[in-house]
């Protein structure tokens, strides 16, 4: 199933027929059902939520809360109350750090993946500084996976939280979340997982994965920008104070006292991106229709084809696992010509001329770049609308980049 045949659902490909969009780890294109859902909401049912009693306000509130239930269902949460809407995974991870930080003390340890996106590194670095906690880093193996031995070695009774990605946004590996959660829980540590690169391509069940917090990015899973959510086990959200405070976060306030609202609303200050959440709901409906199992099968078949094609390019240095088990369709690489490595922006520019959109740079993972010993890499990250033909166009563009710089 290397072509899901869903390109027709995405209007951008009508506007740009020769666009080969391979920057899906950065963001994904939107199906018309998502775009239309937002438009229709603004046109027919728009009002603020949780505030007024007139008809469209009640309808808007029901739509919004309906998406909370959808999201809970999508990931196998126990209740809608375990879903806190945020504007992206970054905000979700900042919130998780703030919540967990309320029970951290000096000398506690945080075990963090060195391959994490900055949004799953910086909130924890700042937390460690504030609380005088110690960070232990989980390293990367030569193969380009998270080093499970390094995880085990650095896990101890002092570890209060382990933080890692479900799927690496640079190396494409899929972490054994369930195994890591089991090990973490055995020492009494909480588990926080960044699902930004996994919820777009595989089924997620937070019960099976046994995570305590999981961050989701709406715009990276074919939903609108400004949408996302944090899954948090009720027991941890129930008594925590919110990161952002304001309208909607309290039951009652006087000059001397604050009585917080119940979770999850306590964590959603101000007017949220209501239309974005409505669009996210349409997105979840769409993804359920396509089927996340089908999406994963497509990802894996594409991964096999990509790996096979890239292996035929002798000038390509691939980062990330070559073994295709537990590996997603995210491929990072550098090109060498006459003993010199091409800068990733030059490669991206040449690819752009063939309509191929790939990324160059540090991919918000500078610690990982340092661990790999590089300044920057190129990344091609594939989505549900990508096909084997797209891979062929990429390969031609990479050959073009090589030929451009090769001395004749």
């Amino acid at each position, binding site marked *: 199933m290397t072509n899901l045949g869903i390109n027709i659902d995405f209007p951008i490909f009508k506007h740009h027929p020769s666009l080969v969009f391979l920057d899906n780890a950065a963001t994904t294109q939107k199906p018309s059902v998502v775009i239309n859902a937002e438009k229709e909401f603004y046109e027919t049912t728009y009002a603020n939520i949780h505030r007024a009693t007139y008809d469209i306000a009640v309808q808007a509130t029901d739509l919004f809360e309906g998406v909370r239930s959808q999201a809970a269902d999508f990931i196998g949460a126990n209740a809608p109350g375990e879903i806190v809407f945020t504007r992206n995974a970054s905000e979700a991870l900042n919130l998780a750090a703030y919540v967990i930080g309320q029970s951290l003390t000096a000398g506690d340890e945080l075990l963090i993946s060195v391959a994490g996106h900055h949004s799953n590194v910086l909130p924890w670095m700042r937390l460690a500084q504030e609380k005088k906690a110690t960070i232990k880093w989980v390293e990367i193996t030569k193969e380009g996976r998270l080093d499970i031995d390094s995880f085990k070695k650095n896990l101890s009774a002092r570890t209060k939280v382990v933080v890692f990605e479900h799927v690496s946004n640079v190396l494409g590996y899929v972490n054994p979340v369930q195994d890591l959660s089991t090990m973490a829980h055995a020492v009494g540590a909480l588990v926080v997982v960044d699902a930004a690169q996994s919820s777009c391509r595989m089924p997620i069940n937070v019960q099976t994965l046994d995570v305590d917090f999981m961050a989701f990015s709406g715009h990276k899973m074919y939903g609108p920008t400004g949408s996302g959510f944090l899954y948090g086990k009720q027991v941890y959200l129930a008594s925590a104070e919110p990161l952002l405070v304001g309208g909607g976060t309290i039951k009652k306030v006087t000059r001397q006292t604050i009585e917080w609202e119940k979770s999850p609303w306590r964590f959603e200050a101000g007017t949220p991106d209501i239309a974005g959440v409505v669009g996210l709901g349409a997105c979840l409906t769409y993804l359920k229709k396509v089927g996340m199992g089908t999406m994963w099968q497509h990802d894996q078949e594409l991964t096999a084809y990509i790996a096979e094609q890239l292996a035929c390019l002798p000038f390509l240095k691939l980062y990330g696992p070559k073994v295709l088990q537990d590996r997603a369709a995210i491929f990072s690489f550098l090109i060498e010509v006459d003993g010199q490595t091409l800068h*990733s922006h030059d490669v991206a520019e040449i690819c752009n001329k063939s309509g191929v959109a790939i990324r160059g740079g540090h991919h918000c993972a500078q610690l990982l770049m340092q661990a790999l010993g590089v300044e920057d890499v190129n990344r091609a990250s594939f989505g549900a609308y990508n096909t084997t033909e797209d891979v062929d166009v990429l390969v031609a563009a990479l050959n073009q980049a090589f030929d451009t710089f090769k001395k004749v």
Partner: protein
Amino acid sequence: MDIYREQLLDHYRNPRGWGLKEGADFTYELYNQLCGDTLTVQLWVNNDSIAEMRFFGVGCAISRACTSLVAESVKDKNISHLQAMKLSDIEALLGEKVSPGRISCALLGLSAAQHALL
């Protein structure tokens, strides 16, 4: 437009003024946040004239080639020539326009040299 033509490739492969030396009159290091490129530029100045411009750094083909073009252009000219240089001058030396996404790359060396004189 194809920026990766002979002029750029020549200055990328054989950058003029490549490598730093002791005794520069002015030195400046610049960092391009967009991509992590760093560049150090050195200037030797005699009587308001640029005797030499040298540079070293990690960067893309465009930043290296454009800095080389600047180094070649400013040699033995009055410092006002360097101070007045703009993107359009670099594009004229390159023989190509620079796409909007790469302007910061093209200007990295020029910016560093102009900052060095401040």
